[in-house]
C-alpha cells in the first residue's frame, strides 16, 4: 500500500504538489489523471524515490521511499521518456536491471520480447518510439517489482498493443501482488485499464475514487418539465453543470442512477433520460467546477 501523507513539493517559486493526502491500495490499477501541470509526474517521481518531498512523506508498505533501496526494490519507475544506454540492446538493459532487481525474470523477458515482436539483440536506438515504450514496460514487468509507476507510458501505444499490455497487467495482478500506478492524459486508456482514479488539479487532489463508483455516481440527465413547474434543481441534485435550451435541461449530477430515478419520478417531468458519463466527461465536469473550463481556455 502506498500512503502519501501531506506531501508538498515546490520547484523554486512554483508549487507543483500541494499538501496531497492519498492512499493507493495494493493490487489495484491506480490511474492518475490531471490537467497539464497538475503535478502528476512530480508525484509519481516522488513515489519512485527520485524526488524528495519538500514536506510530508511517502510510505510504501509502511516505509519511507526516499533513498531507501529496500523499498525501491519493490518499485519500478517507467519515465515518459525512458533512458536507455547508448548502443545498448534490450538484453543489455535486462542484464543491467537484473543487477538491481535480483528477481528479474529473464526467461519471461525473452518470452515477452518474442510475443511483442521485439528483437532483443537489436540496438534500442534503432527502435521506434512505441517499441521503446513497449520495451520499458516489459522491463518493468519482468523486474518483478510490486509497484509499477508509469508516467504517460501508454501514450503512443497502438490499441492492440495497449490491450496486450492491459491483459498482461491483469494477469500479473492476479498472479502476484502488482500495483500499477499510471499517470496519463489519455482518459480512454485509463478507463480501459484502471480500477481507481485520482484526479489531480493544480497540485492538489480533486477526487480519488473507484472508477466504478465514480461512474455510478456521476450521470448526465436530460429532462423537460411542464411549463408551469417551478423546481429548484440545485437543491435536489448535486449538480456539477447545468445547461438549458428552451425547456430542455441538460445537467451533470453527482448522484447514483437509483437516486436520480427516484427524484425524477417525484418531480414528474414531461421527459427525462439518464446517460452514463465517460471518464473524459467526468474529468471535464470535475475540473470545470474548479475553474478549469474549456471556455476559460478559449475565450
Amino acid at each position, binding site marked *: 500500500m502506498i500512503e502519501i501523507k501531506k506531501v508538498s513539493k515546490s520547484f523554486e517559486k512554483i508549487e507543483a504538489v500541494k499538501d496531497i493526502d492519498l492512499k493507493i491500495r495494493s493490487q489495484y490499477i491506480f490511474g492518475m489523471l490531471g490537467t497539464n501541470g497538475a503535478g502528476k509526474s512530480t508525484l509519481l517521481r516522488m513515489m519512485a524515490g*527520485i524526488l524528495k518531498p519538500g514536506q510530508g512523506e511517502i510510505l510504501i508498505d509502511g516505509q519511507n521511499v526516499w533513498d531507501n*533501496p529496500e*523499498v525501491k526494490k519493490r*518499485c519500478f519507475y517507467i*519515465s515518459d521518456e*525512458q533512458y536507455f544506454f547508448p548502443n545498448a540492446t534490450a538484453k543489455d538493459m535486462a542484464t*543491467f536491471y537484473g543487477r538491481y532487481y*535480483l528477481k528479474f525474470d529473464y526467461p519471461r523477458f525473452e518470452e515477452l520480447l518474442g510475443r511483442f515482436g521485439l528483437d532483443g539483440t537489436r540496438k534500442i536506438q534503432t527502435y521506434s518510439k512505441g517499441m521503446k515504450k513497449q520495451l520499458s514496460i516489459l522491463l518493468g514487468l519482468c523486474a518483478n517489482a510490486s509497484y509499477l509507476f508509469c508516467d504517460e507510458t501508454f501514450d503512443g501505444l497502438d490499441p492492440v498493443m495497449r490491450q496486450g499490455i492491459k491483459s498482461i497487467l491483469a494477469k500479473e495482478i492476479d498472479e502476484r501482488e502488482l500495483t500499477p500506478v499510471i499517470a496519463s492524459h489519455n482518459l480512454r486508456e485509463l478507463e480501459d485499464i484502471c480500477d481507481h482514479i485520482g484526479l489531480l488539479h493544480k497540485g492538489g487532489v480533486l477526487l480519488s475514487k473507484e472508477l466504478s463508483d465514480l461512474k455510478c455516481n456521476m450521470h448526465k440527465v436530460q429532462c423537460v418539465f411542464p411549463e408551469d413547474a417551478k423546481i429548484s434543481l440545485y437543491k435536489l441534485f448535486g449538480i456539477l453543470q447545468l445547461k438549458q435550451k428552451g425547456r430542455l435541461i441538460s445537467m451533470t449530477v453527482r448522484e447514483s442512477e437509483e437516486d436520480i430515478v427516484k427524484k425524477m419520478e417525484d418531480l414528474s417531468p414531461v421527459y427525462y433520460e439518464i446517460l452514463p458519463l465517460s471518464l473524459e466527461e467526468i474529468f471535464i465536469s470535475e475540473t470545470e467546477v474548479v475553474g478549469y473550463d474549456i471556455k476559460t481556455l478559449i475565450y
Partner: protein
Amino acid sequence: MTSRRSFINLRRENIKHRIGMILITFFFFFLAVLSFLMIIQNICSRDIKAEKIMEQITDLARPEYGMAFVALGAALLLAVSSFKYLHSRTEVDFYHSLPIKRTEIITILLTNDLMLFVVPLVLVTAFKCIVTAAAGYLSQAFLVHSLFAVVCYTAIFAVTYLTMSLAMLMTGNTFIGLLGFCVFSGYSPVMLCMLYPSLASAFFETYCEFGDKSVIFSYFSPLSLTRLLLASGGTWRWEEHVLHLAAIGVWVVILLLINYLLFSRRASEMAGKAMAFPRWNPVIRFLLVIPGAIYVGLGLYAVSFTSFKPWIIAGVIIGGFFAHGVIECIYRFDVRGLWSNKRQMLASLAAAFLIVGFFWLDLSGFDRYLPREEELSSIVVDTSYLTDNSFWGKERNGVTGKAMIQSRKVLDRIIGENDQNKDILENGGESSSGYDSYTFTYKLKNGKEAKRVYALSPELQDDLMEQVFDTMEYKKDTYSLYTADWSLVTDVEISYPVCTEVLDMTKEQRSELFRLYLEEHAALDYKTASSTVPFGQLTVMHKLKPGSSSYYYAEAGSTDAYHLYPSFKKTIKYLRDELGVDVKTSMKDIPITQVNVSRYEGSSDKWESFDIYDEEFIGSIKEKLCYGDNLWLYGIDRTVDTSVDISVTVKTGSGEEVCSVYTDHETVEKLKQQGTFE
C-alpha cells in the same frame, strides 16, 4: 544496503556502459607509452657514454617529466563522464529510481574512476620498467622515481577529479560545470591572490610586493597544486614536496566529504538548471562579482594610462554591473537575467566600493606607517644595488642599534617627503636626477615584517647612507659575497681600463681574492664611496641557491658586481702578483684621442652630442674617468653622473677602439663646457 557481491556487479555495470570514455583514457596512456619508447630509442641511439644514457633514462621516470597532463586530462574526462548524468532529467530519473542508495552510487563512480586511472598507470609504469630493464638501464633510482611518479599522478588525478566532480555536482549543466571547474581552479591562485597586490599597488604609494605570500593561494586549486608538486630545481626531490603531497591529501579528504554530502543532498530536479544549489547562488555571485568589479575598475584605470583614479569608480560600476549580469544570465539561461536581482547587484557594488574606498583613503594608514622604536628589531635597507631579489647571501638581518634608531629618524622625514619626492621621481625629468627608490623592511620584535618603498631625494639618501653604510650589518645585507656560499660561484670576471677578462684561478685563489676584497670593502666608508669613482669591478657569476624564488624554474645563474676602488691596495696587489692581472687603476696612461659626449634631449626627442679632441684637456680629465664597458652602475649611481653618455676613442696596437666611460659630476660639468650639444 547493497550486498558486496551486487556492489561489485554494479561497479562492473558502470564500467560496461562507459567504454568510450575508458578508451579515451587508455589512449592517453598509450600515447605516453609511445612517446616513452621513442625517447628511449632516441637516447640509446646517441653516441654518448653509458653513464650519460643511464642518467637520461633515469630522468625519464621523474614525476615532472611524465604523465601529469594524462592525469589532469583523465581526471577531467572521467569526472565529467561520471557525473554528467546529473545534468539530464531522463538519466537522473533512470539512475535515481534504481534501488541503490545515493552514497553507493557516488562510491561506485569514485572507486571505478580511480581504478580506471590507477590500474593503467601502474601497468604503464611496470611496462616502462620492463622496457628499461630490457635496454639494460634499469636502476634503483629509476624504480624510486617511478614509485614517486605513481604517487604524484594519483594525487594529481584525485584532487583534480574531485574538484571537477564537485563542479558537476554544484551545477545542472555540463558547460556550467566546466566553467565551475575553471572558477575553482582559478579563484584562489589568480583572483584572490592578485586582489590585494593589485589594490595596494594602485592606491598605496609605498607598497611593494615582498615575500612569497602568494604561494598560500596556490594550495587552494588543483592546477596550481599540481604545478607546486611537480616543480623542481633540476631534480625532483620528494623531501621538497612532502608539504604539497600533504596539502593534496587534505584537499582530497575535504573534497571527498563535500562530494558525498552534496551528492546525497542534491535535488534530482536540478538537472538541466544552471546551478544545483540555488540557495548558494547569491553567495557565489557575491564572491565573483566583488573581485570582478574591482578588477575591471583597476583594469580601466590601467588602460587609461593616466593617474586619474576616478576611472576606477567607473570601472567598478561597469564591472559590477556586467559581472552580476553575466552570472545572472548564466543562472537563468536567459539574457534578460542581466537586469535581475538589482538589490544584490547594488550590495555587491557597495561591497566593492567599500574595499576600494578602504584602499583609496588608506584607512589602514599603510603609507604613513613607521613602527615605533620600541617595536623595531631591525631595518633592512634595499638600495638599487640589489635588483629583483638578486641577493644570494645568507639571511638579511638589517641594521640594529644606533644605526637603526638614526635611520628611523631619517625615515620619519622620508615618509613626510615621500609624496613630493615620488612626484619628482616619476614626472620630474632632469629635476629628478639623483632621486631614487629605496625599499625598507621593518623587522618587528613580534616576528612580523613590513616592507615599504619610498622615493628619496639625494639629500635624504646621503642622510640615510651616512647612518647605515659604515655598518657591517648593512654591508652584509647588501653585498651577497660577505655571506654567500662561494662554492656557488661559477666564474669571476674583472673589468679595468680598458679591458674585461675572466680570472683564471683556483678555488683557493678565488677565496683569497674574495677575502682580501671583502676586508678592504668592509673598511670602505660612505664618504670615500660617495666621492670616489671606482676604476673597475669584479663581476661574480654564480648559481642560484636552493630555495630562492627562481630556483625552481631554471638552473640559470645570476651575476653581481663588486666595485674596485684605488684604495683597495691589497686586492690590487693580489690581482697583479698572484693572479698575473695587469690591473690599471686609472685611465691616465690610456692613449685617448677623442671624447664624445652625448645626451638625449627629451623636448626635441633627439640625441645630441659633441666631440672633444683637445689632447691637453683630455689629459687633464683622464684620471677622473672610469672604464664603463660592463660597469655595474647600481651602488655608484650617486657618485657617477649619468646625465650624459660619454665614450672615448682609445688607441690600441691594432688601431682604435671606442669604449664607454663614466665620471663624476664635476668632470661632467667640465666636459659640457668644452662643446655645444648639436
